[in-house]
């Protein structure tokens, strides 16, 4: 049962701290999102800049870049995903433990960007794995990555622990492993994971 916001502040003034398990749990999760240490292209340079002293991603509890997918919570797809690299990216995502999140950073990661009509570039990583936050830009500035990070933290804060909208790791039925695309003779097979990505409808 949620405590009224006004009452909570009033109680706080009297030295009584009231919270819920959900709030505490999500506070802990959102304050220690450890990204995976991997970069794909030029966006990775901006990602590195974001972690350094000037922009300081550590302010949001995400300074620890883990070199192993087993220890990481967040995958930042920082750059162009080529069709040669896509199976490895999906495989790395599969190796991450729940709860796990994905930020698709930059034009290439969200749509293929300037290389969209090329023969070798995937038209957005959201065709194979679920993406939580998309950032446009080529490359996005560090502020944009910080904004995406704050958006992700808000998303984590808003996740209820029970019910339909609960996060995947609390749902025994949820899909845990995502099929790794096979490198076929002419293209990746299948060209998209239909369970994750359906063709969006453009309304004008």
């Amino acid at each position, binding site marked *: 049962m949620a405590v009224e916001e006004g009452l909570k502040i009033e109680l706080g003034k009297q030295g009584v701290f009231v919270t819920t398990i959900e709030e505490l749990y999500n506070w802990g999760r959102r304050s220690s999102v450890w990204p995976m240490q991997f970069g794909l292209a030029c966006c990775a340079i901006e990602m590195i800049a974001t972690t350094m002293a000037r922009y300081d991603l550590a302010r949001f509890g995400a300074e620890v870049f883990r070199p192993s997918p087993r220890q990481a919570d967040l995958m930042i797809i920082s750059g162009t995903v*080529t*069709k*040669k690299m896509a199976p490895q990216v999906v495989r790395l995502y599969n190796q991450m433990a729940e709860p796990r999140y994905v930020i698709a950073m930059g034009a290439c990661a969200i749509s293929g960007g300037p290389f969209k*009509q090329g*023969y*070798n570039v995937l*038209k957005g990583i959201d065709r194979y794995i679920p993406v939580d936050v998309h950032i446009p830009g080529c490359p996005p500035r560090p502020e944009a990555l910080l904004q995406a990070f704050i958006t992700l933290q808000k998303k984590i804060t808003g996740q209820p622990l029970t019910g339909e909208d609960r996060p995947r790791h609390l749902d025994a039925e949820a899909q845990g492993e995502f099929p790794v695309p096979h*490198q*076929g*003779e*002419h*293209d990746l097979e299948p*060209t998209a994971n239909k369970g994750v990505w359906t*063709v*969006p*409808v*453009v309304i*004008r």
Partner: protein
Amino acid sequence: MKTVEEIKAAIETAVPGASIEIVPNASPSGQLSLLLAPNHAVAVAEFLRDDAELALDFLSNATGIDWPDKEITEKVKVMRQVLKTVDGAEKMVEETVDETRKHVQPGYLEVVYHLFSIEKKHGPVVIRMRTTNRTDQVQLPSLTPVWRSAEFQEREIFDLFGIVFTGHPDLRRLLMWDGFKDHPMRRDYVEPDDFEYEPTAHDEVLARSKAHQAAGQEGAGVGL
């Protein structure tokens, strides 16, 4: 530096049996290049590298070109027997007639190397090699044993154009995966039909995404 003609003469005296052709260049740069016959190419390359005066010790760039089969239409005057009425009687008369003839000039794959000399500070010297055709006889000698910097570039050409370099130490695809069958930089490459979602489609992309939908394929995300 020696002119292209002088280099050609120097090669022909140094490498017996080598046939060199000067490829004309109509562009404003007028940069001529040397077309090497594949069977003597390695010997010629070694000469270019080791010759004291040329000393072309640096291969800066190797690139491929695809020349597809070209249909040439030309008008020819032909002598032909024609039935004609001359002075009231029908006769066979020889006459010149214009005739359009079409013939297909077979295509080939070409590889171009740009050579410089770091020692002598001159260059570039451009050399070329051509395959016999585009389908089965696509072998060319690798120049990697002569200039090590050709290794990755020849692998890239092998990947994207399908030229097979004999004598290359490690000829694998470079950019695409091993099971990939096409050569994307060839003119007749057919890209996979993945035009189901094109939010900002225009021109060629718009036409292709419309064709994708017309073919009854899934996809509704075309911005018009």
